């Protein structure tokens, strides 16, 4: 993986319409972003379509990542994640009867994957671990599967407002932990 500075330099050139830089950016980031699309969508064909659309967005918006103060890699991840989430939600809306939600694989990462330990990640994981049972999982399900309050309430079998209160409280705890 390229350094953040390299990615930032590529993004700056993509913003100016440099197609060679766009190809380099694709070469350095597409496997990561495709992995995210696959994780969210659990379908290769859909993940491929999503990835294509994500790079179209990246081309068009590369100049704007600074607007919200995100680092370049976070911006790329967020664009891919949000786009995949939109797709998965659209699919769920279409297949509401099929109860796709409950067929989603669970998110517990295997031990072999924890090899890549960035300090950022370690901090987030530590803070998630401080949450009461189930709450950390709800945060992961929202982020990586696009589950809504309604989905989560159904999954954890609690009333919607209870779910909302739980999660909001968890976010506050998480924020305090992360800011420590």
């Amino acid at each position, binding site marked *: 993986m390229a350094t953040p500075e390299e990615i930032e330099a590529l993004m700056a*050139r993509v*913003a100016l319409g440099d197609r060679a830089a766009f190809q380099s950016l694709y070469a350095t980031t597409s496997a990561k972003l495709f*992995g995210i699309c696959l994780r969210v969508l659990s379908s290769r064909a859909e993940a491929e379509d999503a990835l*294509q659309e994500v790079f179209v967005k990246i081309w068009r918006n590369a100049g*704007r990542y600074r607007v919200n103060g995100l680092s370049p890699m976070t911006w790329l991840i967020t664009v891919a994640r*949000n786009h995949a989430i*939109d797709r998965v939600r659209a699919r769920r809306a279409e297949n509401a009867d099929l109860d796709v939600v409950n067929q989603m694989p669970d998110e517990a990462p295997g031990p072999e994957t924890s090899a890549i330990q960035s300090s*950022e990640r370690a901090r987030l*994981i530590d803070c998630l671990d401080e949450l009461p049972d189930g709450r950390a999982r709800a945060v992961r399900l*929202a982020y990586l599967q696009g589950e809504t309050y309604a989905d989560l309430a159904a999954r954890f079998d609690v009333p919607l407002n209870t779910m909302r209160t739980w999660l909001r409280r968890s976010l506050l705890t998480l924020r305090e932990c992360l800011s420590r």
Partner: protein
Amino acid sequence: MSGETDPEDDRVLAGEYALGLLSPEEARAFEERMSAEPALRELYAGWAEDLAALTDDVEEVAPPADMPARIETALFGAAPRRSLWQRLGLTWIIPGAVLASLLTFFVVSNDLLVLDGDVPPLRAEIAAQDDSLRVLAAYDADDGALRVTRDAGAAAPGRALELWLIAGQGAPVSLGVLPEARDGVLQVAPELAEKLPGATLAISDEPPGGSPTGAPTGDVLATGQVPSQGA
């Protein structure tokens, strides 16, 4: 949730927004506030950075080999005939139409939030025929800024490079002197910006500080075409 500005609440609200848990109406209201409140933007950015760490253990998977071609086709149309099409700047016109059709699908998306603004930038390459001078320019209507990067070449010693806008049969209008640094931003007045789509951009050799007459006085070193719409 109804318009409170309790800082503790905002921290949670920004997290809910980053996770995509807000209703479309709530999300829109949040975005509106975010565009006016830097502190809120910072809260959101903090969440986005922290939550992105949840993808650290997502396995990387190489996309199919034809993916770059698919993306290129979606953006630039089929089989670009590089030299001619690129020089004419026509590659930029086709994608506009393709994108417009894709966009109706995209807009459902909560990540316009990330992208803030939806007028695609106008981009042009202003180059000498022998590429001895090459400048990339991108105009973003959201902030009225024309971002320029000098890719190749430079002003002659003791001289300056000035950028001109030529719309249709009109006389060249100065967009400003290019910075000595490689990268820079020229602010474009709205009445000039209106004329950018489809216009020609040119760079001329001028005395320091730019043309004293308001019209190009030195050689035109490079030209380029602005597409008629952004992509």
